[in-house]
């Protein structure tokens, strides 16, 4: 069945649950149900926050963090034209695109290296602020982008099965910890739209774009507004805005989808315009972000929202970038992607350090799967199993987890990194939910238990935070 059909299957659930709740309580967002008594005062936890950066398309983790030890030789053999560490026997030079000739890899530990363009992240490594986790996945890996993204978004391997609840992991998180209607910005999406990750029963994520607007024009969040009318109609326009606000206010929530969701979104948008404006007004543009890249723009948007963080009490910002499906000619493309990621995260770090927010921040860099250990005939890589995650932040416990075994990289078949096996076994790995759970528990100081209702293997050994 196509992803869209799976995706829309949740509509009925929403219709039943939200429709029923709306009928009973009059509003779709209940202030009471689902709020943890532990954190009944509001969003709960501490004042820290998380940024999720999703590299859509399946990032080539093996070329972002290059394996060391025994696995290094296998890596070089299996990827003659795209490996980044040894001289190419045909050319006698390192495999580098024009302009990057001879650039050295950046050392981590145990013989592992970082992509040669990631100088900013290397510095974070040296500061002890970067933790790399290799061999991250979930049981019975799936090679479809869309199925795999759905698994990551839902936080469930069997999201369509009898235990699937149609919610995303951040929807469950938000239902648990951000359901206070007075603080509706617990989860904010910047630039990637309404992803399945945010689908909750009680809460709606705030979904923003992030424009290129300059400081004079109000910054990236300045387009989060209702435009005005021509001069002659300005008074009437004010009347229009009053009229629609009153109409939506008097009206009860329509009981059936899609009207319920549209109405809720519209009311939420109208209610947040002034609040967002007030929170981000007088923004100070750090001018360090590369606005030519989507991730630079989006993280700049996060930065502007962080102006109001104490008021908004946002726990999770979700953003990312596309283009990682490097089936062909990947040296150039992947270098560009790694550079964009490194530039954006580095600018973000500098910005947050200057605002004294870096110690409150954790960034997790994810992707739906990695790529094969061997290259294909197009100097690219096809879909593979398992991947490399990075966690960065002021309180991150720097390190490298998940060392590859030689056989994992040398295997001519695709290796499956199955987290039901221990990470130090061949073909074992970490379940992605262990990383999220550690962030929720150790960084945000909230209980991750009900965010991931499906049983998964948690080694408990990562200790991503100081």
């Amino acid at each position: 069945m196509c992803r869209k059909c799976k995706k829309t299957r949740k509509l009925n659930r929403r219709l039943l649950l939200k429709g029923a709740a709306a009928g009973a309580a009059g509003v779709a967002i209940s202030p009471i149900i689902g709020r943890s008594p532990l954190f009944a005062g509001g969003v709960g936890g501490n004042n820290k926050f998380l940024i999720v950066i999703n590299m859509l398309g399946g990032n080539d983790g093996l070329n972002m963090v290059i394996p060391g030890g025994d696995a290094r030789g296998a890596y070089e053999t299996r990827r003659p034209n795209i490996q980044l560490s040894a001289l190419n026997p045909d050319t006698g030079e390192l495999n580098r695109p024009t302009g990057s000739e001879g650039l050295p890899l950046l050392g981590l530990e145990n013989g592992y290296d970082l992509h040669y363009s990631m100088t900013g992240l290397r510095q974070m490594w040296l500061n002890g602020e970067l933790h790399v986790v290799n061999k991250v996945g979930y049981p019975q890996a799936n090679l479809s982008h869309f199925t795999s993204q759905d698994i990551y978004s839902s936080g469930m391997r069997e999201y369509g099965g009898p235990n699937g609840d149609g919610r995303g992991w951040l929807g469950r998180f938000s239902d648990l910890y951000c359901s206070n209607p007075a603080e509706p910005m617990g989860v904010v999406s910047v630039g990637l739209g309404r992803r399945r990750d945010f689908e909750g029963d009680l809460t709606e994520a705030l979904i923003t774009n992030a424009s290129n607007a300059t400081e004079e024009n109000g910054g990236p969040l300045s387009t989060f507004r209702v435009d005005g009318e021509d001069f002659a109609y300005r008074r009437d326009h004010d009347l229009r805005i009053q009229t629609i606000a009153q109409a939506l206010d008097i009206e009860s929530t329509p009981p059936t989808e899609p009207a319920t969701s549209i109405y809720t979104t519209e009311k939420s948008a109208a209610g947040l315009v002034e609040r967002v404006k007030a929170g981000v007004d007088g923004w100070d543009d750090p001018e360090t972000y590369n606005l030519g890249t989507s991730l630079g723009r989006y993280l700049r948007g996060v930065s502007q929202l962080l102006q109001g963080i104490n008021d908004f009490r946002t726990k999770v910002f979700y953003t990312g970038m596309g283009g990682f499906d490097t089936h062909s000619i990947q040296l150039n493309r992947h270098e560009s992607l790694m550079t964009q990621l490194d530039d954006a995260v580095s600018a973000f770090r500098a910005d947050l350090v200057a605002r004294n927010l870096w110690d409150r921040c954790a960034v997790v860099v994810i992707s739906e799967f990695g790529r094969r250990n061997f290259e294909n005939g197009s100097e690219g890589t096809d879909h593979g199993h398992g991947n490399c995650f990075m966690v960065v932040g002021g309180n991150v416990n720097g390190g490298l987890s998940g060392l590859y075994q030689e056989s994992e990289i040398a295997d001519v078949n695709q290796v499956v990194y199955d987290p039901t096996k221990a990470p130090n076994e061949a073909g074992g790995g970490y379940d992605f939910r262990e990383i999220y759970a550690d962030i929720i528990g150790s960084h945000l100081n909230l209980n991750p238990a009900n965010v991931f209702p499906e049983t998964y293997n948690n080694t408990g050994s990562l200790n991503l935070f100081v």
Partner: protein
Amino acid sequence: MVTRSALLVSLIVAMALGCGGGGGEGSGPPQALTLESLTVSGLSGGAIPFAGTGGGALVTVRGKAFLPGIRVVFDNTDAPTVNHISDTELRVRTPAHPQGVVPVSLFSPSGESTTVPNAFEFISPPLVITVLANDGPTQGEPRAAIAGGATFTITGSNFKFGAEVYVNGSPVTEAYLGPTTMSFVDKGNTTEASVDVRVLNPEGLDSTLVAGLAYTAEFSLASQTGSLTIRQATHLLRRMGFGATQVEINAAIGAGTAATISALLSYTNDDTVEQEALTFYGANQPPAASIGNATGQYWWIHLLRHNSNAFQERLAFFLHDHFATSGRDMSSAVRWALYNQINLFRRFSLATDQTLGNGDPGLGYDWKQFCIEIAKDRSMLDWLDGRLSRVGRPNENFARELWELFMLGEGEGYDEADIQEAARAFTGFVWYFPSGQPYLDFTYVPSFHDAGEKDILGEKGRFGYDDITPFWNAHTGTADPTQATDPADTDGGVVALTLRARPTEASRFICRKLATHFLYDEPHDVVVNELAADLVAANWNLKPVLQKLFRSKAMYSSAAIKGKVKSPVEYVIGFLKSADTNLHPTNDFLAAARAQQRMTAIGQVPLDPPDVNGWPVGTAWLGTQTMLERINFVNAAVKELDSFDEHIEPLLPPVGQRSAPQFVDHFANMLDVRISGTTRTQFIAYVNNMLDGSGNSIPYDPTDETHLITKTRGLIYLLAQYYNGHQE
């Protein structure tokens, strides 16, 4: 027909009761208070008169010496009403009382009283709690397909052997399964409706679940009969062509369902509108090097908005979403190929004896031929790396997405080994520069193709592309001789093999996608499978399938009408078409460019899908900021309505029908936005509240042009952003 229930009502069985109290039975004058009989309307059969424990049954009491003000007491509870008819007759309502046989007493204001022991019985009536389908497409729901035939289970209490079931007043074939469960086979209904379900116990006590069963037409592919209502016509033209003007809607109502749909499905290509849009490319008409992606977007937006063959563009946009190819990161020297791909989509619904303005022939809805063409479409060869796949070094990208996203659905009838084998078949194309030209084209090189035996979907053979017909070289107007049918592929191609080896999966996949797009989200298997069987029977021609779909009762069901969330393109193009306006009054290019900017802000613009899976559906379209961007688009559009004569007057209701309520209703109809009563009141108040230059409220004057311009702009703005305005 006379039902048993009606017969029961007409039966009155009088029952003599023994005398009691201080009175004596005799022929003398009625001196003493006497209770002679109790008769309950509509109920009979017990040894003594009875009624339900809930109370409220009408009982006729006969006797003697009844005086006004007499009390009638069942056990210890007074009858809530006592109607004194005469000194020998009372009509009373029973009180609520637990089950059991009880005495009945009369207390006369004269002080006399009489009690008859064991005079009346309270019996627990049946109670219907739920009515749920056991099987069929509504299994587990209190809904029924209008076609009928499903078995339903009634759960409740106090059902008795011999009980009967009535649906919407008519008896159905029931089965008694015990005191808490009955079942029946539903007979169906001609239209969508909510109906009552009633259980009648043999003694005559009954229970009705009001609106216990909702009939839905969403599963019915039978043809809709009767003429089109304005709502149905608006819906049909919206689904088949984004939206329509009042004139077009009225024409559709006049022509009727079948003729309207036939005309939309079969049309003559409009070369003129194509020529208008092509001028946007200026001197760099495709193929040319360095065509910007935005130019292609403007080109198509103009066609989406202005092509009178609305379905040609609507179906092409569906195919663009399905075979989602983005020009964003495409090499500019090859981006012209995307223009050809969109035209391939535009040719799909064009009859085979027709051509586009550029000479490319129609495909007449042939899904098989279309999939063969898309497999070697030039922008697809670039987008999914087909041009880089060589013998010995196959690239899996296209083979995987061909099945997962284009033809079968993820994991439906194939596995990873099939993908790797199919990737071998899709080898052999490369980029090349046509001699002396600055743009890139593709050519097939037989020596780059893996002509060996493959094992795909359970068949072994030397499969390749379905055919490598010479590419039409659009620049030179000649066929390239290096691209000839490869004799190495003796066993045909992967596309034909897929349809041959997996007809069920392949037909259901595309039919599910079509039904999701044109009917409603999450179409049921019964709908999908019926359409799929038709597609296979029609030898992969989609025209009869689409015809059936658009004519079906499902198309006009409440699930379909306004059942989807408008995508940004549907919202923008639909608004411009139904309000018959543009984002620039005279300059088509600027109008298209502005629409492109608005679509980008709202989150969807042609030629730039997020990935090969295309755009989201359903509530995934709803975002906080994109909702504001939708409102801001409408604001920008109404700003173009500034000339009374040119823009406003054509939109207005006739003179004399411009009162505030008429004004609101007129524009609500025009935009097909249904508003609630409270909101209508608010909007009427808004029209009546005209502000002068100092901000003072003055009466709305329907003859004043300034008032009409102001309120036309305002009402369109309000209606389009109202939540129903986002429902497709």
